[in-house]
């Protein structure tokens, strides 16, 4: 294994030397695509001769609505302004699913200016997927990427990373499938490679790994038709790299719920699992309400991420109950499972997975039974309420020492209370300038992320914070120079504090002026708080997770 640049570690070591302030560019937010002047240029819709195109102007098969997106792109700045106090931490109103800029190719200036490209190509250089632009027009570009990979491989080596000025080119070879990321976002190599791994996993969810056999039979096999209509799945996944911590934490998160409510859901799912269902998963958006696996069956958090993304991004599942083959790459990358999918409402959905292709009617009956129990125990309405209420808020952080049991939201202190004014540097956010935190339980493989407080309330700021966390995660887990136990880093945007123990990892963001000793004390309070409410924020016991 060789790296074509040695500067990769230089950037990492600058983090670990704790030398604030880091250069501004390190945390430069990636300007949204929507603000690209070229992005709003009028462009023709997808090829009208394509068999997937519907013939109706506003619905363009897999390539989504181009004329609509034009209008929304123009409006997007205003939309972002208005949604600052949106209860959802990340307003999705400014993000449009599906492939955009489908008319671009490598000759377009707008295409070249995109901050982060993802490509998938075959070992013969045939394009399979491109985040931007039409795959078929990028055949020459794909061939170039393939040439780079095979040139190095012919020398008995593998290319992992190429640095060119501000750009990093990250390569991942998965048998006959090559994945490449070209990015000038300053994300660490490990993060980008992890994102390529996840993209490859999503491909396996849709096709299984046995797609590799097609390349054995015919090296020039064209894989694009097999992925027809899945642009939206990949664009949604790539979008989640900037808002969903599960993509780098390799853990899942639960919807905060009263312990009894989650227990009620778990009990009925367990009944179903005992009747021959492999996995029964009840989710609300990307958060788990409860899940149960058949004996000895274990589910990896990455599989859950990919499954949830697949289901959430495919609009047709919301229309009616569905039965679809899916593959869980970490469970068995070679075979399909069959998923019964039903949305109880806009947000809450049930996935029942089985190995048997003829069990639709059985699973449908299971769902009817589950739905009756969920309604009776108010699980669905509680889930909706939890969505509205949100999860842990830094403003509610209870003071130490703790005594007795605690509940979410119980400690909301009025802003004029004496308790709050005792805290120095309180300002906005929580105690001691705490703005946000993520707590990952290593034993449970679950994480809890606080709601975003007012200093971090635009998608752009949130993306920047996640990029900061990702960098922390990568440096804390760097095998070459790690592992590390704590890290305290200050720049002009915030103080980032990371604390890793055998049981948990804590990532916290503070006001850039926060006091170090106070910040550390606050982290202890956060950990205690998480322990106090773990019944409500985590799925405990009888976990089918093991790996």
């Amino acid at each position, binding site marked *: 294994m060789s790296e074509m640049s040695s500067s990769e570690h230089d950037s990492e070591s600058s983090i670990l030397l704790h030398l604030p302030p880091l250069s501004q560019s390190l945390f430069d937010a990636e300007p949204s695509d929507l603000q690209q002047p070229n992005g709003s240029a009028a462009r023709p819709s997808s090829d009208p001769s394509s068999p997937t195109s519907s013939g109706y102007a506003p*619905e363009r098969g897999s390539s989504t609505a181009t004329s609509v997106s034009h209008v929304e792109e123009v409006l997007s700045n205003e939309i972002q302004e208005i949604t600052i106090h949106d209860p959802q931490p990340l307003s999705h109103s400014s993000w449009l699913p599906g492939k955009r800029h489908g008319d671009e190719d490598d000759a377009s200036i707008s295409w070249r200016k995109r901050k982060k490209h993802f490509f998938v190509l075959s070992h013969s250089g045939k394009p399979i997927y491109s985040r931007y632009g039409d795959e078929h027009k990028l055949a020459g570009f794909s061939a170039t990427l393939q040439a780079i990979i095979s040139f190095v491989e012919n020398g008995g080596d593998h290319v992992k990373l190429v640095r060119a000025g501000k750009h990093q080119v990250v390569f991942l070879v998965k048998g006959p499938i090559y994945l490449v990321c070209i990015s000038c976002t300053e994300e660490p190599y490990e993060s980008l490679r992890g994102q390529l791994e996840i993209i490859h996993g999503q491909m396996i969810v849709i096709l299984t790994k046995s797609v590799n*056999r097609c390349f054995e039979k015919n090296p020039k096999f064209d894989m694009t038709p*097999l992925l*027809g*209509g899945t642009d939206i799945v990949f664009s949604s996944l790539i979008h989640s790299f900037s808002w969903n911590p599960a993509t780098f934490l390799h853990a899942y998160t639960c919807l905060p719920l009263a312990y009894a409510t989650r227990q009620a859901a778990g009990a009925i799912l367990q009944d179903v699992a005992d009747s021959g269902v492999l996995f029964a998963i009840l989710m609300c958006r990307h958060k788990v309400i409860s899940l149960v696996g058949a004996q000895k069956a274990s589910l990896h958090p990455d599989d859950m991420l990919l499954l949830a993304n697949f289901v959430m991004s495919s609009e047709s599942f919301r*229309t009616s109950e569905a*039965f679809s083959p899916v593959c869980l790459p970490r469970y068995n990358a070679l075979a399909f499972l069959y998923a019964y999918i039903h949305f109880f409402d806009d947000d809450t959905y049930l996935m029942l997975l089985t190995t048997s*292709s003829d069990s639709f009617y059985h699973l449908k009956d299971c769902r009817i039974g589950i739905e009756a129990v969920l309604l009776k125990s108010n699980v669905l309405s509680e889930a909706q309420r939890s969505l509205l209420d949100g999860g842990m808020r830094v403003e509610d952080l209870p003071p130490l020492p703790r005594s007795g049991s605690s509940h979410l939201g119980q400690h909301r202190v009025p802003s004029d209370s004496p308790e709050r004014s005792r805290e120095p540097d309180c300002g906005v956010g929580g105690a001691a300038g705490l703005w946000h935190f993520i707590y990952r339980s290593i034993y449970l493989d679950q994480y809890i992320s606080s709601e975003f407080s007012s200093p971090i309330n635009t998608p752009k700021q949130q993306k920047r914070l996640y990029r900061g966390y990702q960098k922390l995660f990568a440096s804390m887990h760097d095998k070459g120079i790690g592992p590390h136990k704590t890290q305290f880093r200050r720049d002009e945007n915030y103080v980032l504090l990371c604390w890793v123990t055998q049981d948990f990892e804590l990532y916290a963001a503070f006001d850039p002026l926060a006091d170090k000793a106070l910040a550390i004390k606050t982290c202890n309070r956060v950990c205690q708080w998480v322990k106090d409410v773990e019944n409500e924020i985590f799925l405990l016991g009888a976990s089918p997770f093991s790996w």
Partner: protein
Amino acid sequence: MGCGSSFPDRDSRQFGRPNTENGGGQDARNLRVKLVLLGDSGVGKSCIVLRFVRGQFDATSKVTVGASFLSQTIALQDSTTVKFEIWDTAGQERYAALAPLYYRGAAVAVIVYDITSPESFSKAQYWVKELQKHGSPDIVMALVGNKADLQEKREVAVQDGTDYAEKNGMFFIETSAKTADNINELFEDIVDYATSKLHHDVLAA
């Protein structure tokens, strides 16, 4: 068919309840018909079903994943009620090998093409051949030319559809899910067509 080999179980088990085999109900006044829609992606299968079941048309069509299951009950003029159990299958190539899962045990197969797309008409003929080869010999097939509202873009003549359907013993109709034209007729007439075509003991008790 690309990676057909990657789909297991393609020719094993029967799909559906044993008592609804071939879609036959027990009572002439209460029929249950299992129906499957097949055809290329983007021809409007889901739009036809959603127009029929919910009376809706959404121009921003969603790509179907796997297959969606919907049901709708209608009353015929002779006061017979027919409950349709509809499998709306995905048109994408990767799902082609899975189609037997959904068409096995179906009484009616509705094969849809887009009158503005000759490719989709060829794909419809592929499905007809597939069903003739691997489907139940009793299955009633309907050929449907959808998007009939797009007359100015028409590339498949009505006569081509009629001729092909006649040659293969199929029911034929052109529809528009957008304008709702012939949608209810499709489902009502297919029952009439099936009852007259099939043996008495298959569809009616």
